[in-house]
C-alpha cells in the first residue's frame, strides 16, 4: 500500500511536469492545427533565459520565471510573423519540415551561444530539499510543479471555455473566413494564441528543468514525449492532455518501478493500446 502511494506521488509529479510543458503544444496542434515540432525549442529557450537570469544575474526565482516567459514570447514574435504565418493551414508535412528546420537552428544557436554544458536554474530555498509526506519524502519542487500544473489546467480551461478570447479562438479555428467576416481579427487571435502556447512552453521548460535539464539538445530530446502525450490526449483538449499526462506518467512510473529493464516496452505498448482503443486520442474531436 505504501508502495502504491509512493509510486502514485511520483507519477503525479512526473505527469504534471509533462502536462505543463506539453499543454502549449496541444494548443498549437489542436486549436491552431500546426504540428509545431519546435515546441521543445521554445521550452528550452525559456529554460536558458531563466537560468541566465537566476544563476548569472542572481535574480529571484519567480522573477526569472516571468522573465523567461516574456523573453521567449518576444523571441517568438518575429518567428510567428515571418515563419509560422506562412504555414498556417499548410499540409502537415510542410509544417513538420519548417518546424524541424527552426528546431535545428535553435539547437545550433544554443550550442554556439551557451555552449553544450547543462544549465541549471537555482531553486529558492523553500523549493529545495525534501518534504515529508508521512509515508515518504518528496522533493518540494515536485509539489510546486504539481501545483503549477493544476493552476495552468484551470486557467487554460477558463480562458478557452469562458472568455471572449476563447470564443474568438475557437471560432477562428473552426472557420477562419466566417470568424473574420464576423469581425474577429483572426491574425491577432492566431498571434495571441501562438504567444500563449510559446509562453506555456517556456513556463514548462523552467518548472520542468529539475526533471528535464536544459542543454542544447533538449529541443529534440524530449520532443517525442511531448508529441506522444498531446496526441494520446487528443490534440486541443485540455482535459484530454491532462488525463493523458497523468495516465502515461503513471504507466511510465509504474513500469520503471516494476520492470525497469522493460520500461520502454511498457510505455510504448501502453501508448499503442490506448490509441488502439481511442484512435483519435482520449478526448480528441472527430474531424
Amino acid at each position: 500500500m505504501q508502495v502504491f502511494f509512493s509510486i502514485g506521488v511520483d507519477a503525479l509529479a512526473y505527469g504534471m511536469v509533462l502536462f505543463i510543458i506539453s499543454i502549449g503544444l496541444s494548443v498549437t496542434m489542436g486549436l491552431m492545427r500546426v504540428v509545431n515540432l519546435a515546441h521543445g525549442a521554445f521550452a528550452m529557450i525559456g529554460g536558458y533565459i531563466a537560468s541566465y537570469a537566476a544563476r548569472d544575474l542572481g535574480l529571484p526565482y519567480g522573477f526569472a520565471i516571468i522573465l523567461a516567459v516574456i523573453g521567449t514570447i518576444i523571441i517568438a514574435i518575429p518567428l510567428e510573423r515571418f515563419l509560422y504565418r506562412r504555414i498556417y493551414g499548410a499540409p502537415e508535412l510542410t509544417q513538420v519540415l519548417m518546424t524541424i528546420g527552426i528546431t535545428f537552428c535553435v539547437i545550433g544557436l544554443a550550442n554556439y551561444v551557451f555552449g553544450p554544458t547543462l544549465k541549471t536554474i537555482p531553486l529558492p530555498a523553500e523549493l529545495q530539499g525534501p518534504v515529508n509526506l508521512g509515508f515518504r519524502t518528496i522533493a518540494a519542487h515536485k509539489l510546486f510543479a504539481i501545483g503549477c500544473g493544476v493552476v495552468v489546467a484551470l486557467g487554460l480551461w477558463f480562458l478557452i471555455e469562458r472568455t471572449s478570447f476563447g470564443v474568438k479562438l475557437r471560432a477562428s479555428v473552426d472557420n477562419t473566413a466566417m470568424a473574420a467576416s464576423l469581425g474577429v481579427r483572426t491574425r491577432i487571435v492566431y498571434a495571441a494564441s501562438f504567444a500563449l502556447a510559446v509562453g506555456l512552453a517556456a513556463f514548462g521548460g523552467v518548472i520542468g528543468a529539475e526533471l528535464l535539464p536544459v542543454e542544447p539538445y533538449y529541443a529534440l530530446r524530449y520532443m517525442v514525449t511531448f508529441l506522444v502525450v498531446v496526441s494520446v490526449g487528443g490534440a486541443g483538449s485540455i482535459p484530454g492532455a491532462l488525463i493523458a499526462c497523468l495516465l502515461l506518467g503513471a504507466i511510465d512510473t509504474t513500469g520503471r518501478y516494476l520492470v525497469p529493464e522493460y520500461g520502454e516496452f511498457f510505455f510504448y505498448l501502453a501508448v499503442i493500446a490506448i490509441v488502439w482503443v481511442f484512435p483519435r486520442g482520449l478526448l480528441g474531436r472527430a474531424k
Partner: protein
Amino acid sequence: MKKLILAAAAAILLSGAAYADVIKIGVVGPFSGPFAIQGKNFKAGIDAYIATHGNKVGNDTIEVLYRDVPQADPAQSKALAQELVVKEGVQYLAGFYFTPDAMAVTPLLQQANVPLVVMNAATSAIVTKSPYVVRTSFTTWQTSAPMAKIARERGVEKAITVVSDYGPGVDAENAFKTTFEKEGGKVVESIRMPLSTNDFSPIMQRVRNSGAQAVFAFLPSGPTTLGFVKAYNENGLKEAGVQFLAPGDLTQESDLPALGDAALGILTTFHYAIAHDSPENRAFVEAARKAIGNPAELSFPSVGAYDGMHVIYKMIEATGGKQDAKKAVDAVKGLAWESPRGPVSIDPETRHITQNIYLREVAKGSDGAYYNKEIKTFEKQPDPGLAAAK
C-alpha cells in the same frame, strides 16, 4: 579509366610516405548533437597537444581533419573513415567516442594501412578487432572494477547496481558485480533502465526497498546524470546512508556545476580528474582550457585525445613519416610516458593503456567550484575486461 583511378588512389596512399611533408590525421567524433561537448573535448585535447608540442614531427607538418558523427552511427562512421582514408589520404585515424563507431572502422585498417587510435570508446573488445587499434582512453571495466574493492573495503556487504541499458552500462554492471562478489560481497539486485529514462524516482524507491548499503550506478555523461543524482538525494537515500558509487563518467567535470551540492560526497573511480595534481596536468589543463574556450566545458575525453596525439606523434617519429601501420603500432607497444593523468603505458599485448585508477570524491573547493578530489590510487591497472570476456 579504372586503372587510372586505382593508380591515382595508390599514389595518394603511397605519396604520404616519401614526398609529402603534410601528415593528415582524421578524427571522427560527436561534434554536434547531444554529445557535442565530448567532441569539443577531443578537439581541445588535440589542440592542447599541438599547442604544447608544435605541429611538426621531424620535417613533417601535422594536419588534423575533423568529421562529425553526432550520435552512435556505425555506418556513417565507416563511410567517413573510408572517405578520410581514400579522399583525404589520412595516415592516422583517431577519435571515436562511441564503441560501435570504432568497431565499424576496424575492418578497414588492414587494407588502408592506417592505425586507429581510440580516444574514448570504452568497450574492451575493440582492440581485439584489429591489430592496428591502440587505445589511450579507458575501458568501463577498468574504471568500474576498482570501485567494487572500495565498496568492500568500506564494509559494504550488500550492493545494488543501477545502469543504463546499453553496452557500457552492462559492462559496468558486470565489472562491478564480478569483482564485488569475488571480494565476498553480494549484489542483491541489478537494475537496467532504458537510456531514455527521465524520472528516476521510481528507481530510487526500488533501491531503497532493496535494503542495499550502496548503490553502484552507471549512466552516460550528460543530462540524465543530473536527474539521477537529484533523485538520489530527494528520495532520502543520502540521508538513509546508502553510499553512492559510480565510475567517473557520472561526475565528469563539465556536469559538476549543474549537479552542485547534490553531488557532494559521491565516490567515483576513474582514470582522470582535472584536479589531478602534477606539473604535467597543470600544463595540460592550462593549454586545454585555452583551446576549449570556456574552461567549464573541459572534461575527461580531452585527456584521451591528448595522449592519443602523443601516441600518434611517437608513431610518426618511428616511421619517419612513412605510411606503415604495422611499424607504427609496433613502435608504441610498451611505450610508457607521464600523462596528465599520471604514469601510463601501452600494454604490448592488448594495445590498451595501462594506467592508474583513482578513487575520487566530489568536493567543493575554496573558490566555491566543485571538483573530483583524488583520495586513493590503484596503480598500473590493466584492462580486466578482456580477461573477463574470455
